[in-house]
């Protein structure tokens, strides 16, 4: 996170990580489509000829938020990493300074090993950057729910209960689950930053208010809590809203 008091500006970096071809860029493209035009910048994609991500994709989201201390600029930069194994060094570079991570897993059974390998890669890269995966807000998205030969809902639900991270199911090509993953992570990320940097006092902005404003600015007013709590697992009791905040 970059906090600029003088410019009343907070910049957050979110990274979409995952194995090759799991749909990270598709997530970002869908997110770009799903947010209001005035709050989004151009989607920067650095692709090769065969549509494989070469370096990263980046979508800047910018909106104003009114806090108790006045109006401020919130900047959320969403990145994807290149999934192919050969781009290991680029993944590590893009991961630098990430405030939160969406791990995009491929639901196909045949991809189980690649998902695990990519997750271990993520862990190793964070470690290399001097961070531990337990310190970084993380949500896991099972993408490609529309394909055959995938891990079933029941299986994912069971697995999700065993893990610590919130799990979302998605079909990024149709946009399903994309906002849920994004807001789920944004919520967790802001709360973590709030704990670490006491943003409530410094900025006069409570986490619930932040999330509600973000949702409204991105064209999804009133849906913040619903979107951010549409996950399974995440080591919370079923039915408890994640932030305890109210829908505005």
């Amino acid at each position, binding site marked *: 996170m*970059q906090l600029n008091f003088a410019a009343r500006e907070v910049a957050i*970096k979110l990274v979409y990580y995952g194995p090759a071809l799991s749909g990270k860029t598709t997530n970002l493209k869908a997110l770009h489509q799903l947010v209001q035009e005035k709050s989004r910048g151009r989607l920067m994609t*650095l692709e090769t000829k065969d549509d494989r991500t070469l370096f990263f994709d980046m979508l*800047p989201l910018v909106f104003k938020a009114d806090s108790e201390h006045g109006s401020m600029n919130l*900047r959320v930069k969403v990145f994807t990493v290149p999934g192919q194994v050969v781009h290991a060094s680029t993944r590590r570079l893009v991961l630098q300074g990430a405030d939160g991570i969406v791990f995009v897993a491929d639901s196909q059974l045949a991809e189980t090993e690649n998902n695990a390998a990519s997750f271990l890669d993520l862990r190793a890269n964070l470690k290399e950057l001097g961070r531990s995966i337990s310190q970084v807000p993380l949500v896991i998205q099972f993408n490609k729910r529309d394909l055959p030969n995938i891990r079933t809902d029941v299986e994912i639900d069971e697995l999700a209960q065993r893990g610590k991270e919130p799990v979302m199911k998605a079909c990024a090509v149709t946009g399903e689950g994309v906002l849920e993953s994004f807001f789920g992570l944004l919520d967790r990320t802001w709360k973590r930053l709030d704990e670490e940097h006491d943003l409530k006092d410094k900025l006069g902005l409570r986490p619930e208010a932040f999330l509600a404003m973000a949702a409204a600015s991105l064209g999804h007013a009133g849906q913040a809590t619903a979107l951010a709590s549409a996950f399974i697992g995440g080591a919370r009791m079923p039915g408890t809203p994640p932030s305890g905040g109210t829908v505005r």
Partner: protein
Amino acid sequence: MTAQKSTHGSGNALDVVGDVPVRLEEVIDREALVEMCRSMQSLFGIGVRVYSADGALLANVASDLDICGLVNDSSQGRVACGATVSAAKSVDPGDDGDVVHACFTGLAYRIVSLDYEGRRIGRIVLGPYAPAGLREPPETLARTVPKLDVIQSTTRLSAVARVKPEALGRIAHHLKTTLELIIFSSHKAYVTSKLHLYSVRESYRALEEKTQRLEQAHSKLKELDRLKSDFLGTVSHELRTPLTSIIGYSEMLAEGIAGPLSKEQADFVGTIHGKGEQLLGLIMGLLDLSKLDSGTMSLRQASMQIAPTLQEVISTVAPVAKKKGVELVLDDDGVACELAADAERLRQVFVNLADNAVKFTPKGGTVTIRARVADGGASDDDDEGGAVLLAPVRRVVVVTVSDTGIGIPSAERNKVFDAFYQVDSSSTREYGGTGLGLSIVKRIVEAHGGTVVISANEPGGTVFTVTLPSAQARRTLPSRLPPADRT
């Protein structure tokens, strides 16, 4: 505020994967920008200025309006004009990013912001232009520049083309969009090249780290290897000393120096002596191996012929072969070629190979030692030409030791030269041996600049082919072979 440990030199990649504001000066080519503004000016007849966020003028394409010339002719007018232009430069275009700034002449400036990723990175100032409703010079003109010729100023002002606000808005929007697109494209190119650079650097760093680890491991292994050789050398030496006593005393016992022995006692002492000799052979082998490994074995190289050595080999192995019922054949065809070699070591090589061959050949089989002189044949540097000159000095002596025994599977053929290796551990029990012999053979042959390879002997059995370079070859092609005078 980025609470992150940067573990290595590529921490500065945050300038592209972080949120560093883009500077207009850095992402835009000034000459190209001026060219574009000039084309806009010639298309619409309105001056264009582009400023960066901190007020630096990046492009200035002004229209020379007659009215402006007239105003600037007077000193008051010049001062007032300068003040207007600098005010237009610094006026805030507000949240909408679009504002009109009026001039005292009745003309106006339109100021639009340039935004990128939600940040204001510069502004475009269009003008001066005459707003659509302007009919006659406003009173501010007479007030600011009282001495101005009213008729002239009216004529000149009316000559300026009138622009409707909507039309100007469209022009401004077009220019803004175009510039923002250029900024995006060049920022993208900037990010790509920067990240490419960082990725290469990061990969290089990772590789370098790995190389360093490998180098460390390598030197550690080398040190271990040296220690192993030292250990083998010391232990062999220390073992040999008491063993010499065992052999000596058992020999004396067998000879009856300490009194007569019963037949059974003589048998036992004979076994002790025999096993002692066997053990000594093994220890000597180990010693040779460690000397060869550590490079401390001295080869007494002298001019020699292979034939007499092979004769000796035959006579050494003959008793064993005869006992086993294996025919031993020497075919040296009067081979004559000068070698620079240690005759004793070469004898050891061929005794070893012949002994091995006999050991693995069943009764009724044949072991053949065959020697020939050959032109060096194909070589690694044949591509470089000169074969006609080099082949004659590349003469080699080729000695093959072939048997009709059990053979060695092709996959195992290279491993048999490893110390202590036997194709099948069960063969140790059946045929005896330590697996040391062949590794010593290989090292001695290589120390002479030669090679030893294994092939199959049809229909069954094994052929060991030892190729030794002639003395001439070792003198003339020193770069590829150990020098002949090595001691």
